[in-house]
């Protein structure tokens, strides 16, 4: 197997990511480890949403809700361990199970209802469901309501992984992403993936050859929600904080932006997109230009909004279209 330029570029990115903690140590700035951990967690969430939007044509606008569910499992666990002395709730494996199982069940319920609808109705009903979860979190006073919940102690992984060590958390996230990239690669190439992608382009044909698109879509919806729940588990450990804001519909919008930035329906697209999104945020908000006493960077969304429109209008295949060669599966 010869290496195509695309595979080379992807490999170089992965290699670079593998070295981030070493590079940060060399330049003596651990800020970059935290930032990159954040990027990779968002890449995991975007990767899962890409299964729905990119491969399945299901534009879910409530994906941040599952991140929130996963994150709250860590927050609630730490809260009860700290406040009421319920030690087992600090157990990272219990929290992880809660995050994965909880987000899977919620995705199953939301998916079962939402997938009865199509197109713009689907966009809106998924958005509405995520708002329901958002308002639930805002309404529950015990867990901080809209102020959120500080996490005083990260998930206890029984000595296997030290979550409070920034580097080991980074590598947990990094290897999670690698494994999920591989699994996603296998998934979309399998018969299951073929049905999902086939239903996107021609649902009637899938039905006539004997597949029920609804069931396949629902399974994809649950898989995507579960992975996002796992991303939430990681995110809570990184931030030491959960709040309803994580599930707000605009956070779901950010995830969609990442997918489109990176190139839709492409295995590595969400990773490039998450990198590009947070880099743009960092770069635009640190523009040193000052006009009339106003620092331009402070109003970075004034630039980011129109930039988004320009990307949609003129570069809709995202970063992927700038890479040489073609991704087989897109």
């Amino acid at each position, binding site marked *: 197997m010869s290496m195509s330029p695309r595979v080379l570029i992807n490999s170089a990115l992965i290699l670079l990511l593998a070295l981030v903690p070493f590079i940060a140590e060399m330049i003596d700035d651990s800020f970059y480890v935290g930032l990159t951990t954040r990027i990779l967690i968002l890449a995991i969430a975007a990767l899962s949403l890409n299964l729905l939007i990119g491969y399945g044509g299901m534009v879910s606008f409530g994906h941040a809700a599952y991140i929130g569910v996963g994150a709250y499992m860590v927050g609630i666990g730490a809260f009860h361990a700290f406040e009421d002395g319920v030690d087992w709730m600090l157990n990272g494996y219990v929290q992880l199970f809660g995050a994965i199982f909880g987000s899977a069940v919620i995705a199953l319920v939301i998916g079962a*209802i939402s997938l009865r609808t199509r*197109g*713009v*109705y689907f966009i809106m*009903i998924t958005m509405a469901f995520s*708002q329901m979860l958002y308002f*639930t979190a805002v*309404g529950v006073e015990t867990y901080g309501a809209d102020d959120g919940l500080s996490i005083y102690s990260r998930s206890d992984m029984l000595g296997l992984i030290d979550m409070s060590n920034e580097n080991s958390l980074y590598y947990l996230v990094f290897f999670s992403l690698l494994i999920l990239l591989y699994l996603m690669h296998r998934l979309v190439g399998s018969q299951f993936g073929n049905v999902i992608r086939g239903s996107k382009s021609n649902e009637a044909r899938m039905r006539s050859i004997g597949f029920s698109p609804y069931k396949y879509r629902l399974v994809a919806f649950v898989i995507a929600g579960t992975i996002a729940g796992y991303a939430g588990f990681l995110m809570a450990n990184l931030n030491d904080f959960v709040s309803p804001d994580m599930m707000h519909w605009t956070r779901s919008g950010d995830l969609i932006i990442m997918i*489109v930035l990176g190139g839709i329906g492409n295995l590595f697209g969400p990773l490039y997109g998450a990198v590009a999104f947070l880099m743009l945020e960092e770069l635009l908000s640190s523009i040193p230009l000052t006009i009339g006493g106003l620092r331009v960077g402070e109003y970075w969304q004034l630039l980011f909004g129109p930039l988004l*429109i320009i990307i949609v209008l003129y570069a809709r295949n995202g970063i992927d279209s700038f890479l040489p060669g073609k991704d087989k599966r897109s």
Partner: protein
Amino acid sequence: MNWLLLLEQVLNGFQLGILLFLLAAGLTLVFGIMDLVNLAHGSLYMMGAYFCATFTGWTDSFLLGALLAIPATFILGILVEVIALRNLYARDHLDQVLATFGLILFFNEFVRLVWGPIGLDIPLPAFLNSTVEVIPGVPYPTYRVAIILIGFFVAGLLYAIVSKTRMGMLIRAGASNREMIGALGINIKLLFTLVFGLGAALAALAGLMAGPILSVEIGMGDGILILTLVVIVIGGIGSIKGAFIAAIIVGLIDTVGRSFLPEILKLMVAEDSAATAAPAISSMLIYILMALVLAVRPQGLFPPKGVGR
């Protein structure tokens, strides 16, 4: 149960419903005719309120401020359509959602830059800052009555425009078959631009009327946008009648639910768990309603006739 409070809350519900209808009408016209999902509709609502606050400050008259804010937002809407959205009609919904999401980011930041991070107040004029007795012995703020009356008036006007005038005929024709009315020699680009401007003006009307009772602040359009989306999805996208009925239903359920749900819950569960659960559940009521409606009728309650989708 306190019947006077219930009556007051029903009126408040109508008033929220009317505001939602003004927003939903614009959103559903734009979607029904141009097939454009415009998430930035809430931003036009916000801009309408900020324009009104500014013009009211300049002219010292809420009425003049309102009369200036509507055409100003109409023009802003037309600019947005011409500059950013015109090229998106042929694109899929995902592109439209993203580009209009970009507009939301832009407008929220724009307002922060121009008007600062702290919200504005629109003072009520003296002649509206009083109460009237809707039924003997029940005083109700004049201003809220005015909102309800203006809302019904505008709904009637909109109905007349859409069903009786030439522009309305073109709008309806455009909704069922875009290519055909273009082929008949109608300037469809201009028609779309005008309809978008009309939607913006309606959003501005809602925003400036909400201004004195809610606060005029950054992001005020984002929350109500979601409510409006719920309204048009329940009503059936593209149907003005559906939007009207759904807006009133959503307005009533949301308002009445918020004030009476704690009481109702107390009858069923322990008092302190009712007090905890009530705020969350009452914010969720309309989303539960939407899920129920869509589970039974995926096309909404009143899907428009003749719109193929």
